[in-house]
């Protein structure tokens, strides 16, 4: 249970995500999230797992303030997301890196421009862009393919580009919604290893996944959702089987 998790209280463990009694109901159907309590500290690596329709994507969308909560309290990086002003949202989002299952690259631009795009948006200078983009492409292992268009890349490579784009602005938190959902086991592992490496460099990483094998192998914190409720939250947890 969420409450069971002991909160360590060292200086490094600064809490950067707090959800208290959060409910989210869409206009139709049963609430997607019910009474969710979740605390995540700076530098953590957290898997979010659960059946299809259990509310994982909804949770991610609440964290990036694409959706607003119906009731409760949500704070990310010190921003009260229920109250945040519309024009503050861009500034808030610059603390986040986001990766999706379907990569969402700009198909008309090459690898370099896709990553540079993120830097343009936060109005980095040309000089910084020329420095930052190649170095992040090297980290994700795509230094040699910076001129390729997305359609000339494999799924794994495309997801690395998406990852590079999410990381180039040096976000405090990386949110990944099923980043390996479209990838084969080998590529899935490579992406997960990259995420782990990114986490080791200090970024808080939150990964939604259905990949049982990887979750069980990586021995990270695992939060399990079931029908919109957190049913388990364990350090070094595993993928909980449906009974």
């Amino acid at each position, binding site marked *: 249970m969420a409450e069971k998790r002991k909160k360590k209280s060292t200086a490094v463990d600064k809490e950067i995500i707090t959800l208290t009694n959060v409910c989210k109901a869409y206009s139709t159907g049963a609430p997607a999230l019910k009474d969710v309590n979740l605390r995540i500290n700076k530098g953590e690596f957290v898997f979010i797992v659960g059946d299809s329709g259990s509310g994982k994507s909804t949770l991610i969308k609440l964290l*990036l303030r*694409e959706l607003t909560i119906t009731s409760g309290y949500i704070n990310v990086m010190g921003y009260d997301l229920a109250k945040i002003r519309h*024009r503050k*949202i*861009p*500034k*808030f*989002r*610059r603390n*986040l890196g*986001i990766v999706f299952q379907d990569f*969402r690259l*700009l198909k008309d631009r090459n690898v370099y421009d896709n990553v540079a*795009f*993120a830097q*343009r*948006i*936060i*109005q980095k*200078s*040309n000089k910084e862009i020329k420095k930052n983009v190649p170095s992040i492409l090297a980290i994700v292992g795509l230094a040699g393919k910076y001129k390729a268009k997305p359609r000339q890349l494999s799924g794994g490579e495309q997801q690395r580009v998406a990852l590079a*784009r999410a990381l180039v*602005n040096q976000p405090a938190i990386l949110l990944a919604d099923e980043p390996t959902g479209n990838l084969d086991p080998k590529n899935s592992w490579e992406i997960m290893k990259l995420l782990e490496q990114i986490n080791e460099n200090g970024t808080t990483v939150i990964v939604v996944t259905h990949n049982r094998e990887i979750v069980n192998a990586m021995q990270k914190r695992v939060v399990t959702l079931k029908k919109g409720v957190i049913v388990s939250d364990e350090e070094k947890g595993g993928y909980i089987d449906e009974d």
Partner: protein
Amino acid sequence: MRISTFFYTLRQGFRNLFRNKWFTLASIATISACLFLFGLFYAIVTNFQHIVKTAEEGVSVTVFFDEGLEEIKIQQIGDQINKRPEVSAIHFVSAEEAWDTFKAEYLGEYADGFTENPLEDSANYEIYLNDVSMQPALVTYLESLDGVRLVNRSDIAATTLTGVNALIAYVSVGIIAILFAVSVFLISNTVTIGISVRKEEINIMKYIGATDFFVRSPFVIEGMLIGLIGAAIPMGIIYMLYNVVLEYVTNRFSMLSSLLSFLTVEEIFNVLIPISLGIGVGIGFLGSIVTVRKHLRV
């Protein structure tokens, strides 16, 4: 805003133009048509006004006096006329002057045979008006004066000219207003298409933390570029056509050419270019900003 961001945004604006070529072309064509007509009307109306004004300046009323009227009486009549508000200038022409002019204009060297002035009683006042529509009232007044034998009015129907002028202005304003509305509508549509085509990109931008301004600017720039190009094309065409048409009109109606004084292409363009560019860019800005505010509530 950073310089590099500004240029990036500008580049994106250009990209948008090419991304939905057909809509861009349609919008440019409409604005071009609109501003072409505007330019045409402007050139015609200003020329017309110029012609009317020149004609008006030449419109005069001539007053002849009773035979043998003393000079002092003539002087008094002159003073009275001068007091009228619609009179802009009054010029006394003595009998000698009238004869000299006549000789120069019609007789040339044959004038030598005359020893006496045959136009003895032709001393007159040439009266110029500042408002042609007051001509009939002035004539009535002059005819009532003592010592006045004859009042001649020049035959240009200046009032009709002014009437036609106003009509042209109204009609052109009406047509241009309609075309402007169509242009704004088309630009708005072009930008809407652009936004829907790039929904995905806009979403990504929002996730990454793009400000409203950053997301919207390329579309507004796109609109303004459409306006700018849409203004430049008709200006170029009118510039090239103007002298050709002018030459044709002057040759074709050469007997009128002494009467018609046209403006030069530079005189027209000094005013037309800033107005047209302003309108073009303005329409582009208006059409896109309205659309972007409606559809890009980011």
